[in-house]
């Protein structure tokens, strides 16, 4: 009851600070490509180049099966959400440290700095989906009604990403090692998530690794629902939803607990 009340007052506060949240997200989006000639086109060009090279490597050289779907599409529906996840983490881990001048000067709920970073990455992600649409058109992929599951999966992904980001950003304020460790972990994590291969080619006895990994469940669910593989695995998805919510709740709690000390340590 008490925590519900706290949650409500926090949501109300977020609503009061919505303009700051939006302005910070806007700054994040705006500043990045300001001095580049191609500007925001980079958001599409980077994954496009990644997709083309990886497609060559994994489909043509290594001949990884892709369940009868053009490999590049098979790859894109997993790689783009993965990039959103990885970029969100690596940017939010620095979101408190890089705004230290604000943290030591003026009070506002600090989680706004993390949220605004994730919103900026989400905008990037939505733009990068243009690349996916191009491939759908080129390969004349037919989409089915199960596509309507995608928003729900996306919400689970956001809860999971935000949860991890909050705790990483807070810890990085105390120990800068976190940001270096994170780069390593995210890279290895990608190999242990079925982004570049179907989970079906993994030997049965190692599959449990993937069911413990929420990102693996999320990526699989995207692939299944977007590429017409039927409805997602409800059980795994429910587990992923619960895991993500618990991670979010715990990190949020710890974040709020440490918040008062941010200005002393940054």
């Amino acid at each position: 009851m008490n925590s519900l009340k706290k949650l409500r007052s926090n949501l109300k506060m977020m609503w009061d600070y919505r303009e700051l949240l939006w302005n910070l997200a806007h700054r994040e989006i705006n500043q990045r490509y300001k001095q580049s000639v191609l500007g925001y086109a980079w958001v599409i060009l980077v994954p496009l180049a990644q997709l083309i090279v990886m497609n060559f490597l994994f489909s043509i050289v290594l001949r990884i099966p892709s369940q009868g779907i053009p490999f590049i599409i098979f790859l894109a529906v997993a790689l783009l959400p993965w990039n959103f996840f990885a970029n969100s983490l690596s940017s939010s881990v620095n979101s408190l440290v890089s705004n230290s001048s604000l943290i030591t000067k003026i009070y506002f709920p600090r989680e706004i700095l993390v949220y605004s970073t994730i919103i900026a990455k989400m905008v990037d992600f939505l733009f990068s989906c243009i690349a996916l649409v191009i491939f759908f058109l080129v390969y004349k992929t037919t989409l089915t009604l199960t596509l309507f599951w995608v928003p729900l999966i996306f919400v689970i992904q956001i809860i999971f990403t935000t949860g991890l980001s909050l705790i990483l950003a807070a810890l990085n304020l105390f120990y800068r090692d976190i940001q270096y460790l994170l780069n390593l972990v995210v890279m290895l994590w990608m190999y242990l998530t079925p982004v570049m291969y179907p989970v079906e080619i993994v030997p049965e006895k190692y599959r449990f690794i993937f069911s413990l990994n929420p990102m693996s469940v999320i990526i699989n669910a995207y692939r299944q629902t977007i590429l017409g593989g039927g409805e997602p695995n409800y059980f795994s998805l429910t587990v992923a939803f619960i895991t993500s919510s618990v991670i979010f709740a715990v990190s949020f709690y710890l974040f709020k607990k440490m918040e008062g000390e941010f200005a002393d340590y940054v």
Partner: protein
Amino acid sequence: MSDNIIIKAENISKVYNLRRQKTFKEFLPALFSGSDTRIKLNALSHIDFEVKKGESLAIVGRNGSGKSTILKLIAGVTKPSDGRITVLGQVAPLIELGAGFHPELTGRENVYLNGSILGFKKKEIDKLYNGIVEFSELRQFMDQPVKFYSSGMYMRLAFAVAVAETPDILLVDEILAVGDTKFQEKCLRRIKEFQKEGSTMIMVSHDLNMINEYCQKILVLDKGKQIYFGEVEKGIDKYQQLLS
């Protein structure tokens, strides 16, 4: 608390736990060898003061005496380790101007960003915008990224945003030392107006003339300890004794 007291500090202390080791590499061996991983720094101990609405307070002391820590406590960015501080009203910090500015964004974008950090809504900034530009005298530069601004222009814009609306409490941290004399006078005039409208100013300064002119109360600190709190004249004497 009586109704015209706006800031009340009761026996506040602030202890910083500084880590002796900055990375895991240094931290882990220290943890295992059992040596101390933290040093305590008493930034403030047993400070008591109160400020009435419309009064202005000067905080003086040598470097490292805890002046900025008091401003941080009033701004609410850090909490006292002991004691209690009560602040009633909206605080506008003018500490290290331009903290909320981003070099790649234009002057206009920065006004909106900085305004929302200070807690203004977009509609309010829309209304204040012309006044801000007027005050900063930067009309023809508003659509340029602020990275092309000189440090004086930068300061003018930041000050203009911070003083766009009468705050309940204005925190000023030696910033008036920057900028040309003409603009400085303009800033001081604005501060005078605020005081007339009932704002409270908390000022950290080494300029005794300015303190005499703008403040009614003074807090003298030395190495985190309170030497004096009260009338300006007596406080300045104490401070000068401290320096000599």
